């Protein structure tokens, strides 16, 4: 104990600090350990040897990494594909209607994804009537050309935008559709004109395929 204290005093005293080696010196001579180290020269790989064993080790590690990466990728892919629509859903998602059988001035209702879809073959008089309306006076202003790709054919979801009843065709004050539940009147373009409904009848996605109409 006594010797430890005196040794501590010795190293800490200013006089001895000057003669001692500097602690933070970075010259290699000062850093050189005074311990005797064994000679590893026999075990050091001689210069110019090829890296066969090292490459083999890394190749093994890399192959495991490759397999796990491929496995992780297909796991994620399998999980993501469960989110896409299955074939039976896709098969039900479209409805094809032959338009040749629908005479001018007639309504047809088809079922699409469990919802009624109104198809009306409009006469020229009805098209003119739909275009004549001043859209600024409407509750949900929309041009007739925005609602019908082909003015002859009006295709829309037959669900009242108020509370979801199915409107009656060729009825109401505006010659279009009338919802019997709460008395919403739609015109010949399916736009809301009178009654509680806030919006025009919705237009589904559709395209014409020759004489057929594909909804969905």
């Amino acid at each position, binding site marked *: 104990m006594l010797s430890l204290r005196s040794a501590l005093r010795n190293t800490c005293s200013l006089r001895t600090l000057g003669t001692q080696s500097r602690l933070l010196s970075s010259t290699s001579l000062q850093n050189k350990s005074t311990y005797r180290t064994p000679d590893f020269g026999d075990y050091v790989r001689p210069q110019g040897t*090829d890296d066969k064993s090292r*490459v083999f080790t*890394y190749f093994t590690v*890399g192959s495991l990494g*490759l397999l796990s990466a*491929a496995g992780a990728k297909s796991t994620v892919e399998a999980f993501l594909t469960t989110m896409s629509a299955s074939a039976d859903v896709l098969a039900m998602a479209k409805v094809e209607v032959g338009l040749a059988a629908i005479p001018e001035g007639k309504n047809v209702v088809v079922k699409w994804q469990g919802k009624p879809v109104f198809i009306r073959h409009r006469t020229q008089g009805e098209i003119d009537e739909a275009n004549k309306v001043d859209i600024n006076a409407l509750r949900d202003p929309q041009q007739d050309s925005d609602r019908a790709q082909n003015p002859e054919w009006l295709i829309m979801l037959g669900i009242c935008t108020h509370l979801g009843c199915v409107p009656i065709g060729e009825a109401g004050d505006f010659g279009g559709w009338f919802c019997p539940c709460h008395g919403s009147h739609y015109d010949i373009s399916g736009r809301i004109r009178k009654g509680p409904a806030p919006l025009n009848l919705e237009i589904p996605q559709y395209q014409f395929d020759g004489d057929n109409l594909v909804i969905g």
Partner: protein
Amino acid sequence: MSFYTNIYNSLIKRNSIFVGTIFAGAFAFQGFFDVAVTNFYENHNKGKLWKDIKGKYLEGGDDEEGDDEDDE
């Protein structure tokens, strides 16, 4: 420089290149593996698959050559 030293210096020395090689290899491996497994499966079940027996059930099916294969 030997072959292995070349590999070590070009692919393994830098970790970014090593990992990048592994990922690129995973993509390539997956495509290869898919094709290999599909080929094996179709070879193993030859004559029982829908594309082999389709001609027997569809009038419009023009691939009648599938018929002679399921006699084995």
